[in-house]
């Protein structure tokens, strides 16, 4: 008798509690900022500059009960892997978008659907190519952070010397490009002393393929297209751009001597004509040689449209993360328009103080980017870099990325190695890419099949 009464009481108690909890859950869908607490340990993010620290500060102010800590430095895959494998992953991870799907497909990262809903993140304000890179089977696994692009950097002194103008410089017409390269290359005593045009192989191989109207991977990320006619042609062409300098070995030996980050860099020292480069280098130039004879232009495909290979990282949450809400709040805050604006403002302040040029910052958050470049980053007082900023903004729209695929590294290595084999004269472009195609497709099939 007594037992059943106790039992009934218990059941009643349980039911009431359950209903109460359900009510709370339903009535408070957006968590109050004070409720998110605990620790959030992040792997892969470095707090080395004001763009990082300002955003982190914003997070700390918004969520005072969360203790966020960083395992400083770029993501070490080995460290991350062992952490995940042992069941003690970091609470949040900052990971290259090209790598993200490798881990997502294997179940190491969790979908952020709930997070996006809870935080009210509007994914449409992000560059769609970036979002696609982190979307697997319709679910989003990362919030994109940076959107870094590529454009041409030009040594105007060399251009002038060759009797050309800035308008002549273009990558649209490949025959013309070869002529430009030859015109700008300088050989003294049989050794190259100025490279006309650096095709940036192997890293920019995807750019060349895109320029030629092809792509390396199908949009669904399942079919490799490494040995398509467009790809082979692109490789052959880009490879041929080493000829004026005397071949790849000569080219590389010379290029290795450039004082890349210093004030006597290759533009100042008149060691290069023009070449496609990642946008961060514009910052370097602004810092170390703001008065050098530089100009910027978009890299164009064979149809004349500007194109650029866009890279960057994303905030993701590992499966078994100890603090999903905290990590989610972090991801949302770091990528929010508010955070980016604050960071950009700080950068503008610091640069104004030190008298250096402010070239802004490029988030994948397009809304933030718009505000940053229309309201915060103004004319720098240096025509060259004003023009550079204009080009930077132009190519933001033209960025493409290799689609999400779970064989990230293996795929990339396949084409990298193929390009290298061609560069070293071991194989022809067709042979190398055929081999790469087989390797890449095998890797893709294997990775997708075990999903």
């Amino acid at each position, binding site marked *: 008798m007594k037992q059943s009464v106790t039992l009934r009481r218990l059941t009643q108690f349980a039911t009431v509690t359950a209903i109460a909890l359900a009510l709370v859950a339903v009535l408070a869908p957006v968590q109050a900022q004070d409720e998110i607490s605990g620790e959030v340990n992040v792997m892969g993010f470095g707090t080395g500059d004001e763009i990082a620290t300002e955003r982190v500060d914003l997070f700390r102010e918004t969520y005072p009960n969360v203790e966020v800590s960083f395992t400083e430095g770029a993501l070490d895959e080995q460290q991350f892997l062992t952490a995940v494998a042992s069941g003690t992953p970091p609470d949040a991870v900052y990971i290259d978008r090209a790598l993200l799907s*490798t881990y997502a497909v294997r179940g190491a990262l969790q979908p952020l659907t709930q997070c996006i809903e809870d935080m009210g993140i509007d994914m449409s304000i992000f560059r769609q190519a970036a979002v696609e890179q982190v979307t697997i089977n319709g679910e989003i696994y990362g919030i994109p952070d940076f959107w870094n692009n590529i454009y041409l950097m030009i040594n105007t002194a060399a251009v002038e010397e060759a009797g050309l103008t800035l308008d002549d410089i273009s990558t649209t017409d490949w025959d013309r490009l070869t002529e430009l390269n030859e015109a700008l290359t300088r050989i003294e005593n049989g050794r190259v002393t100025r490279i006309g045009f650096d095709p940036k192989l192997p890293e920019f191989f995807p750019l060349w393929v895109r320029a030629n109207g092809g792509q390396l991977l199908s949009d669904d990320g399942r079919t490799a297209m490494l040995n398509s006619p467009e790809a082979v042609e692109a490789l052959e062409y880009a490879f041929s751009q080493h000829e004026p300098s005397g071949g790849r070995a000569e080219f*590389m030996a010379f290029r290795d*001597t450039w004082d890349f980050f210093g004030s006597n860099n290759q533009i100042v020292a008149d060691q290069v004509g023009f070449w496609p480069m990642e946008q961060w280098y514009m910052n370097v130039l602004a810092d170390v040689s703001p008065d050098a004879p530089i100009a910027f232009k978009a890299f164009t495909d064979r149809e004349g449209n500007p194109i650029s290979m866009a890279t960057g990282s994303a905030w993701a949450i590992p499966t078994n993360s100890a603090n999903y809400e905290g990590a989610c709040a972090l991801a949302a805050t770091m990528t929010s328009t508010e955070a980016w604006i604050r960071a950009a403002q700080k950068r503008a302040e610091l640069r104004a103080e030190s008298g250096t040029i402010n070239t802004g910052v490029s988030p994948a958050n397009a809304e933030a980017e718009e505000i940053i470049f229309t309201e915060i980053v103004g004319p720098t007082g240096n025509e060259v870099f004003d023009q550079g900023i204009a080009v930077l903004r132009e190519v933001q729209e033209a960025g493409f990325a290799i689609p999400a695929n779970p*064989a990230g590294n*293996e795929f990339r*290595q396949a084409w990298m190695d193929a390009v290298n084999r061609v*560069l*070293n004269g071991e194989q022809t472009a067709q042979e190398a890419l055929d081999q790469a195609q087989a390797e890449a497709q095998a890797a893709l099939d*294997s990775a997708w099949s*075990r999903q």
Partner: protein
Amino acid sequence: MSTQSVLARLPFGRRATLQQREALAGIAFISPWIIGFFIFTAGPMVISLGLSLTEYDVLRPPTFIGLENYQRMLGDPRLMTSLYNSIYYALLHVPLSIIFALSLALILNNVGKAAGFFRTAFYLPSVTPAVAIGTLWLWLLNPRVGLINRGLEVFGIQGPGWTTDPNWIKPGIVLMSLWSVGSTVIIYLAALRNVPNDLYEAANIDGANGWQQFRHVTIPMISGAIFFTLIVNIISSLQIFTEVYTMYFGNQTNNAAASAGLFYNIYLFRQAFEFLNFGYASAMAWLLFVIIMILTFIQLRLSKRWVYYEGG
């Protein structure tokens, strides 16, 4: 090994007791290693052998695929390249480093107290972090402005493209490794100092000259140390990794080394940690293991001919 079985095997009762005590004591001394072996070596080795029969990316449970990894290895051109590279490097590096280290040690042995300063100088590179070594040598080997080629220019030789010509990548790495012979020099020096002086005096009295003393006293007496460094150097040469990875495979986009500098362990690391093919990497590791074992046993067999032990 039970007391009974030991006793049963030996013909003399009294010696049996002594032998048995000796055996047990010996094993007692060795016991720490035995325990460690089971926990940290045997267990993991069995696991890794098992893994080599699977497809495993660490993040999801392994899938059994039998000998497929090994079959793949046979048809993998990159595997063959990496094996070739490692063997080539070992063949070049080991003899050179032993001869070089021995020469240095002999010279050091003959200068008495001054050796201390020099010893530190030679050992210094071994103490430098591998990352720093790799970075340093990438610059030293630069064909146009690196110290090596600039030094050669002084003698009128035009240095090759150590970092840009695939044919010179491995020799360049050998050069870098020779810089780190300090440890081997120290081992030889310790061995040389251990050679009893009276042997030399006796040889002197017998009228042996310097070279003969070297051949018939020094070499045999330090043959143990030479043997040791020979084995260890071969094993470690076949497993070279950090410096080369820093130089050519970390963030660099140097391509001359993409094939020429792809050493076995680098390819293994890549398969494991970049491609997440732990099963395949385990199979690769076991192949290397077998190769090393075979090489070592051959050397052990041969060693009976030329290595001299006094108290074994």
